[in-house]
């Protein structure tokens, strides 16, 4: 390498930058652990789960003002929902420090509450959970596009709906959910309730 470059401010800057990146990545990795880690199961009695109609759910949302809210609509009968659920649980931990609240709403019939609770416990779902009130039609009340599960919604800190991620014409991938959360966080940065 030419002597002039080795001693130039530019080379010092490049070396510092590379070192800094190394330090930051190392710090980041040890702070988060592997993203592939699954949350351990929790006791069924520790699962926060209640039946709610749309109004009850909106009251819950109103109590989350100031936070971005990610809602995962799922059901015990929905296989793709269960494939995405560990990612939702993981997101609740990953995004907690960034002002994001995760909540899951099961579209199962309330007579399946025990099964719903057992599943949530096995998944380590430490966040708030609801079962949608079955009447009037919950898929209409909760605006599940195309009546199709899985389905996600994102609300901003002011309570306004920011994203609807439906599965009626396209399969939902984990990256779609992450991207949406990141976008909403960026759009609402600095915004209050």
């Amino acid at each position, binding site marked *: 390498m030419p002597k002039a470059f080795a001693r130039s401010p530019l080379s010092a800057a490049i070396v510092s930058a590379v070192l800094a990146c190394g330090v930051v990545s190392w710090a980041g990795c040890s702070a988060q652990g592997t993203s592939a880690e699954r949350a351990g199961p929790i006791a069924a009695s520790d699962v926060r789960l209640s039946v709610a109609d749309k109004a009850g759910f909106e009251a819950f949302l109103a109590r989350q003002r100031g936070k971005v809210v990610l809602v995962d609509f799922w059901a015990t009968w929905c*296989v*793709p929902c269960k494939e995405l659920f560990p990612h939702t649980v993981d997101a609740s931990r990953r995004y907690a420090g960034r002002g994001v609240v995760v909540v899951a709403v099961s579209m199962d019939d309330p007579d399946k509450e025990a099964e719903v609770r057992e599943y949530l416990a096995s998944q380590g779902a430490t966040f708030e959970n609801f079962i949608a009130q079955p009447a009037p*039609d919950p898929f209409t009340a909760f605006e*599940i596009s195309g*009546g199709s599960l899985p389905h996600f919604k994102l609300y901003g800190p002011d309570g306004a709906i920011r994203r*609807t991620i439906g599965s009626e014409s396209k399969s939902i991938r984990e990256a779609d959910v992450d991207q949406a959360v990141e976008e909403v966080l960026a759009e609402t940065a600095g915004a209050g309730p």
Partner: protein
Amino acid sequence: MTGHRNVVVALAALAMLALVASCYAADAKLKIGDKAPEWKDLPGVDGKDHSLGDYGDAKVVVVVFTCNHCPVAVAYEDRLVEFQKDYKDKGVQVVAINVNNLPADKLDKMKERAESKGFNFPYVYDESQKSGREYGATCTPHFFALDKDRKVAYMGAMDDNNNPDKAKEKWLRDAVDSILDGKEPAKASTQQRGCGIKWD
């Protein structure tokens, strides 16, 4: 600096347009009264090819987008067989179409299911998924009833509860009864619900 700002504004406008367009794409594809899309030569579990035109004599054709793996779709299989049995002599033809791209939903598995459940209607596979796209099928099961002119006269769910013992509102039956009477169904469209279709 003005050059940069113009680009930013243009990009923002384009992004907004895309967002609005995607919202419209999510709305129902067909309206009540639309001419139903035709499918041609879809392979059935009986080893033959099937087209909408095969049922020229039927007063009503009930198209169901369904599949093997979705528990909601499975929960409706017996009801669908019963419905076809009850309405065969009234000139109603049920056709079940599977557009899912999933090993569990391929033709060989469809044959097994049709046999074990005693399907009394054609169960056909659309590998292109075109019929699903053209009907705007969003989940399995998703029901459409076509009148004698093959106009869409009903779309949505079969009834109001996945559990057959709890189903009270028999929307599909009521709609088909009206269509057979030459009347418009009181409830021509209901909210379908089920597993999202496995698109390519």
